[in-house]
C-alpha cells in the first residue's frame, strides 16, 4: 500500500490486510526529516508567524484582563447573586474537558493497542497540557481574593488549618493538579527519544545545550529503551484512570451541590463523555490546519481523521443520550423544582443557548454517519468547530441556567457577560494557542520513534501480537521476556 499515489487515501477497509498508517515513499530518515524540519527550518511558515502574532496578542489581552480583575475585583465580570459562577467556571470546565482527548489518545489508546494513535498522540498530549494550564488558571483567578488562593492547597501554615476536605472544589484542586502532573510527565517522558534526535541533529550551541538537557542524556541504548518503555507504560496505566476521574471530580462540583440542574448522579459519566467528545473536536480543530500547512498528510492520514470523526460521532451520541436522560429523570423523578429547571433550560430565557448546544453537539456530528463527511477534512473541521462551540455552551447552560433560577422565585436573576468576560475567554484561547504554536515550532510535534514503529520498516508487522508502541519489539531477547509477563 505504500505505493498508493497522492492523494493519500488509506481509509478503505480491507479486512485482509491492515491499512497503512504512514503513506508515501517514507523511510525512517524521511520521517525524521519531516518532523525535525519543522523545528529546524530557519524561518517558520508564514501562517505560523501570523497565528502566533494573533495568539500572543490575545494572551496579552488575557493578562491585561487578569490584571484588571486582580486590581478591581470580581465585579468586572458579569457574575452576580444568584449567578455567582458564570464564564469563569464555564471556561474552567471547558478547558479541563479539552484536555481529556490527549490523555485518552496517549494512554487509553496505547493500552488498547490502537496503532493509529502514534501520529497524533504527541500533539494531543501537548494540547492536554496547554488546555489544563488554561483550565487551572480559572479556579485560581475566579476567587474573590486570588492572593489567598493557595489556601485551597493543603499547605502547612501558621493557622494550623487544613482546607475543608468535604468540598468538591478541594477535590478539584487535587484532581486537576494530579492530572496536570501526570500528563506533563507522560508527555515529557514520551518525548525524550525525540528530544535526543533533535539534540543530535542540532547545529547551534543553544539548541544543543537545551535539547541536550531536555533529552536527559538519552543515547538510545537497549537499556535506555527498556527503562523508557517500562516508564511509559506505567505512566500510561497511571494516566488512564485519571481520564475518568478528573472529569468525574469536576462534575462533582455540580453533582454534590443542592442546586436543581446540578444535583444529579448522571454527571460523572456524562461529563467524561462530553470531555472526550470536546477534546477530540479540539484535536481535530487544531490538527486539520496544521496537517495542511506543514504538509503532514502522509503521517497524519485521512484514516487518522476518520477514526477521530468516528469517536466524535460516538461520544456525541453519548452526550445526546445524557441530555435526553436528564430530561427524562427530571420528569420521572417527580421533583417539581428539578422539572422546572429543565423546562426552563429548554424554554426559558436562556433557551437559545440550550438549543445551540443541542444543535452543535448532537445534530452536527450526525453527518459523520457518511463516510464522505468523515474523509473530507474541511467538513470535519466545520463539525469540530461547531462541537467546540457546543461544548462550551453545554457548560454555560449547566452553570448559568441552573443558577439563574433556583428555589426561590424572588431570587431569580440573570447573567449578562461584560466585555471583560468575553475578552478573558478570548484571551484564554490566546494563551492556549500561543503555547501550542510554540510547541509546534520548538518541540517534536509527532512522536517520531513511535511512528517509525508502525512503518513496515519497523518490522512490527511481522509478529503476531505486536502492537504499536510496544517498543520492546525491537530488542528480541527482551521482547520474549516481556511478552511472557503479559497477562
Amino acid at each position, binding site marked *: 500500500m505504500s505505493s498508493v499515489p497522492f492523494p493519500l487515501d488509506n481509509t478503505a477497509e480491507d479486512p485482509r490486510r491492515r491499512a497503512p498508517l504512514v503513506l508515501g515513499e517514507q523511510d525512517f530518515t524521511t520521517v525524521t526529516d519531516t518532523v525535525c524540519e519543522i523545528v529546524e527550518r530557519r524561518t517558520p511558515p508564514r501562517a505560523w508567524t501570523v497565528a502566533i502574532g494573533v495568539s500572543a496578542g490575545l494572551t496579552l489581552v488575557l493578562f491585561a484582563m487578569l490584571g484588571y480583575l486582580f486590581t478591581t475585583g470580581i465585579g468586572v465580570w458579569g457574575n452576580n447573586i444568584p449567578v455567582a459562577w458564570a464564564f469563569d467556571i464555564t471556561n474552567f470546565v471547558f478547558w479541563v474537558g479539552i484536555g481529556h482527548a490527549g490523555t485518552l489518545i496517549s494512554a487509553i489508546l496505547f493500552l488498547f493497542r490502537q496503532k493509529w494513535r502514534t501520529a497524533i498522540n504527541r500533539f494531543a498530549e501537548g494540547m492536554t497540557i496547554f488546555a489544563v494550564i488554561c483550565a487551572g488558571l480559572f479556579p485560581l483567578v475566579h476567587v474573590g481574593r486570588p492572593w489567598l488562593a493557595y489556601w485551597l492547597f493543603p499547605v502547612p501554615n501558621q493557622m494550623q488549618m487544613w482546607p*475543608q476536605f468535604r468540598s468538591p472544589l478541594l477535590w478539584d484542586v487535587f484532581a486537576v493538579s494530579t492530572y496536570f502532573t501526570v500528563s506533563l510527565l507522560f508527555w515529557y517522558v514520551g518525548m525524550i527519544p525525540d528530544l535526543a534526535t533533535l539534540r543530535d541533529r542540532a547545529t547551534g550551541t543553544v539548541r544543543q545545550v537545551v535539547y541536550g538537557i531536555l533529552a536527559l542524556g538519552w543515547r538510545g541504548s537497549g537499556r535506555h529503551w527498556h527503562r523508557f518503555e517500562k516508564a511509559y507504560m506505567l505512566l500510561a496505566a497511571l494516566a488512564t484512570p485519571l481520564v475518568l476521574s478528573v472529569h468525574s471530580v469536576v462534575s462533582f462540583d455540580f453533582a454534590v451541590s443542592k442546586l436543581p440542574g446540578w444535583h444529579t448522579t448522571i454527571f460523572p459519566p456524562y461529563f467524561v463523555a462530553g470531555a472526550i467528545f470536546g477534546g477530540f473536536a479540539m484535536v481535530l480543530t487544531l490538527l486539520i490546519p496544521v496537517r495542511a500547512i506543514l504538509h503532514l498528510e502522509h503521517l497524519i492520514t485521512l484514516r487518522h481523521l476518520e477514526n477521530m470523526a468516528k469517536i466524535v460521532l460516538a461520544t456525541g451520541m453519548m452526550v445526546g443520550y445524557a441530555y435526553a436522560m436528564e430530561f427524562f429523570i427530571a420528569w420521572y423523578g417527580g421533583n417539581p423544582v428539578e422539572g422546572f429547571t429543565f423546562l426552563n433550560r429548554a424554554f426559558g430565557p436562556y433557551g437559545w443557548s440550550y438549543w445551540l448546544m443541542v444543535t452543535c453537539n448532537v445534530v452536527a456530528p450526525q453527518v459523520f454517519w457518511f463516510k464522505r463527511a468523515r474523509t473530507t477534512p474541511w467538513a470535519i473541521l466545520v463539525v469540530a468547530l461547531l462541537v467546540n462551540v457546543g461544548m462550551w455552551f453545554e457548560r454555560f447552560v449547566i452553570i448559568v441556567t441552573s443558577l439563574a433560577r433556583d428555589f426561590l422565585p424572588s431570587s431569580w436573576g440573570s447573567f449578562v457577560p461584560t466585555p471583560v468576560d468575553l475578552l478573558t475567554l478570548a484571551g484564554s484561547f490566546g494563551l492556549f494557542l500561543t503555547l501550542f504554536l510554540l510547541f509546534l515550532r520548538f518541540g517534536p510535534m509527532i512522536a517520531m520513534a513511535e511512528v517509525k514503529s508502525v512503518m513496515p520498516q519497523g518490522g512490527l508487522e511481522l509478529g503476531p501480537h505486536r502492537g504499536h508502541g510496544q517498543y520492546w519489539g525491537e530488542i528480541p531477547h527482551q521482547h520474549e521476556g516481556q511478552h511472557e509477563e503479559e497477562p
Partner: protein
Amino acid sequence: MRRGRGVREERGSAGEGPARQGGEAVALSAHGPHTTEPAGYWRSLNELADTPAFREFVAAEFPGLEEELTRGANRRSFLGLMAASLAMAGLASCRWPRELILPYANRPEGTIPGVADRFATAMELLGEGVGLVVTSVDGRPIKVDGNPLHVASLGAATSWAQALVLELYDPDRSTTPLRRDGGQAVAANWDDFDAFAAPHFKRLAESQGAGLAVLGERTSSPTVAAVRQRFAQRFPRASWTVWEPLSRDNERLGARVAFGQPVRAHPQLARADVIVSLDADILGFHPAALAHARAFAARRRAEDRTMNRLLVAESGLSLTGAAADHRVALPPRDLERLVLAVAVELARRGVFLPFPVPGDPAVGERGRRFAALAARELAMARGRGVLLAGPRLAPEVHALVHAINSALGNIGTTVTFTAEPEEERDGPEGLARLASELADGAVETLVILGGNPVYDAPADLAFGERLARCPTTIHLSLYDDETSARCRWHLPRAHTLESWGDVRAWDGTVSIVQPLIAPLYNGRTAAELLARLAGEGGSAHDLVRRTFQEGATEREWEGAWRRALADGFVAGTALPTVRPALDAGRVADAVAALAASPVAGGLAAVFLPDASVLDGRFANNAWLQEVPDPITKLTWDNAALLAPATATRLGVRDGDVVRLSVAGRDLEVAVFALPGMAEDTVGLPLGYGRRRAGKVGTGVGFDTYQLRTLAGFHTASGVSVAKTRRRYPLASTQDHHAIDTIGFAERARRLGELVREGTLATYLADEEFARSRDEHGTKMLPLWQEVRLTGEHQWAMAIDLSACIGCGACQVACQAENNIPVVGKKQVARGREMHWIRVDRYFAGPPEDPRVVFQPVTCQHCENAPCESVCPVAATVHSEEGLNQMVYNRCVGTRYCSNNCPFKVRRFNFFNYAKQLKPVEKMKFNPEVTVRGRGVMEKCTFCVQRIEAARIAARNERRPLRDGEIVPACAQTCPTQAIVFGDLNDPGSRVAALHRHPRSYGMLEELLLKPRNRYLARLRNPAPEGEGA
C-alpha cells in the same frame, strides 16, 4: 427591656447635654463652632498676616523681609504673600501635624471608651415627632432606633429615621454659609452673615417687618413656636407661610367642616374589628404609622382566635393596601365619590346618617361592590369599626367620613379626637399667595427655613423664577440645593442629630431633641437662626431650655428636664381628648358639593409619597435610595406606575420612556407596570429627579413635581401619554427582568409552598393547615447520623408573616447595624445588592386585583447548611449554638456557598465598596462589625455582635441570659414585631413557643436543611361570603 433601661441609665449624663457631648465632639470636628481655635489657624490671609505669631514666623523664616511681607495689601504684596504662603505650606508639611484629637486625661463620668452609649432624642418629619434612641460610640452616633417608651415609636423606627445617621455624615452637606451674587457662590462664614443680617433686620424691624416674609416647613416644635412669636413681635407686618409638598391640609379642613373646629382624628386600631380605608395609607405614610402598624398587627395573629378585617380602596398600591383583606383599586375620580357609595349602602342597611343621602354615585361596578361590602362590615361592627380617608381626598370626603363614623358610634371608641395643635395650613394655597407676592415685588426679604420650594413647589407657580425677583433671600438647609442656588444666602442647617430642639408627636407628646455630636459643619437650627433674626440670639440649647422652663409646671423643672431627656419625652404633654359635635349642616353641604363635583374622564395622575426619598428630602441618602421600594422593589428610581392592563392598552412595557402631559406640562418618564394599580391611573412617586441633591441623589429618577400644579395637586386628570422610542434601565431587586410565561407559571405554583397563607376560617378549622402540606409532600430521610449541636443556647428566629407589612425598615436597620455597603444602581441592576435581609414581595391572583404577600428572608441558619460543606477553605462553619458563621478572614471568595444556598441570602463583595468612602462617611461604621473588603462573602449573622454583647453583660452580672435580651437589628426596628429571636433551648422563650406554634413552618423543609428560622403562616380575614371585591 434592656433598651428602656439603657435610656434611663443615661439620665444623669444626658442632662449635661452640650457640655459633655460637645466636649467629645471637639475631638472629632476640627472646625466645630465650640472648638477653641488653635493659634495659627487662620480664616483669611489678612487675618493670618496680622497675627503676631505669623510676624514672628516670617521674621524667622525671611529675615529682613518681614516688613515687606506683612505690610497691608497691595497687588505686589498680595502676590508676594501668596508665594510666601505656598512656600510655607510646603515647609509646614515638614513638621509634625497638629494633633487635635486629645486623649482623655480624666475619663468623663459614665463613659467607658469603646462602650456604646444610648441617648434618647427625637426627629421631626413633616411636622410630627418620633422618639428615637441613638447609639453613640466614643462620640459618634452610629445607629438610630425607636424609643420604646415613646408613644409614636414604641421601639420601632422608620427607614427615614434610621437613615439619619447616613445623612449626618453625608459629605455633600453644606459646610459653610454661601453668598451668591449674580449666580456666583462665594464661601462665607457665619460672621459674614451675622454682619449682614444684624443691620438688615434692624432696618426691617424699624419698618415693623414690612416686606419681610418667612417660608417655613411644617413644625410642631414648641420652641420654634415661641421664637416665632417673639419674631412676630419684632416684625409684626412680616408674613409667615408654611409649605409641605405632602400636605395633610385636606384632613384638617375636613375635620373643620365636620365639627366646625380644628380637631385631629386618631384611629384606635387596637379597638377596631373592621377598618375601612379610603386611600388612607395608615401603615405606611401617616404620622402615627408606627403605632398604627403595631396596633394593627396585634390584631392579626389570631392568638385569641379573632382578627381585625381591613378593607382598602385606593388608586396606587400602598402598604396598607397590600395588607388588606379586601382591596379595590379605583381611579381617583371613583375613589373621591366612593364615600358617597358607602353612605348609600349604609343607608340601605338602615343606618341613620345625619345628612341627606344622595342618589347612587357612579363609582363603577367594582367600586359599588366594595362600597356594599364596606357598608355591610361597618354596619355589623358598630362601635367596633372605623372608616378612614387619606390626605389626597377632598376635605368633603373627610367630613363625610367623620359623619359616618359618628353615625356608626365609632367616635370615642375606634376613632378619638384631640385638639389640632397646629391648624396652620401647609398646602399649596399659602405658597401660591407667597409666590404672587414675590411676583408683585411685595417681598423684599424672604427667609426660607428648611424645605426646598424651588424643587417641590407646584410647577405652575414658577417659584424659582419668582424667588429670583426678591432682592434678599436667605435659605437655611442641610444641602446647598435647588432653592439655595436661587437664594442670595445659603446657610447650613444643623442636622437633627447635632441640634437641640423639641417636637410634638402626633398625639401631642413633646420630646426634647438633644444632639449626639457637635455640629460637624457649623450648622444652626431653624430656631437659632430665627432667634438671631428676632434680635435675641442665644444657642439652640438655651432656647429649648427656655421654652421648657416656661412650659414647666413643676418648680423643680431642672429635674423634669433631665427626666425628659432621659426618657425621650415629656410625660403628660399628650393632647387631651375632645368629643367634638358634628355640624350636620356643613356636612350636608359637603355631601352636596361632593355629589355635584364634576367627573373627570381619561387618564389620571396620582402623586404619591415615596417610600425611600419621601418628598425628595432624602434623595441624597444612599441607604434609602438603595433600599427597594416595598411594593415595586425598584431602587434608585421612581417610575410612572401603570396597571398592567393600562400599560398593555397603551402599548408600553417596563422601562419604556413615555411623555406624560398634564395641562400643557410635559415629563418624560419610564413606565413600570405594577399589578394592583387602578386602571386609567398613573402613579407618580414624588421626590426624584433632583437637580442639586448631591453626589448621590442628583439626576436619580424623574422629577414628577414638574407635572404637579395647583389645580392638580394630589391628583390630576386629563393626562395624555405619548410613546417615545427610548428605553430606560430600571434597577429592581426582584424580578430583574420581565418574566417569561413558564417562569410566571412556575412562580405562581411555588408561591403557595414558600409563603403559606390561610384565612382565619381555615386556621380555626385546622390550626396546623400550614404544615399539612408537608405531610403529603416529599419526605427526605437523613443519610447519616446528624450532627448534634451541644451549645448551651440554640439561637433561632421566627417571622410572623401575618404581622409583616413589608415596610422594609428591617433592611435599613440591618444596613446600619452591620456596615452593609451601598452599591449603586448599576450594581443593583446586575444583581449585586448587599442587603442581608430582604423582603420578598409576591403577587398572587389576577394582576388587576392581586394579593400581595411579603416574606422577609435572612440567612436561615440551617442546621444542615449546604453552604458549609462546599466551602473549600472552611470559611463558613457552624457554631455549637446553631449559628451559621461566616469567617471573613478565611474567605477566599469562591462563591460556591452562594451557589449552594437555596435561599440565596449570601452576598458577595464584588468590589471594594469601602474604598471610595470619605473619612467623614467612615464615622458611621459600627465598630462591633467588621467592614468587609472585596472578594469575601457575607450574610446575616443573627447580629452575633449583639448576642456576644448580651452574653458578656450577663456574665459580668453573673446571671443567665434572659429571653428577649438579645434583639437583632431587624427585630428591634420592626414596627409590627413580626421578627422574634431567642434561644430554643429555653422552652419558655418566645421563639421556642413560636417554633412550636401550629402556624409555623420552615421554608424548603423538603431539602432537610433544618432551618433555624421558621415562618408563621400568614392569615387573612376576608369577609365570609366574599361579597364585593
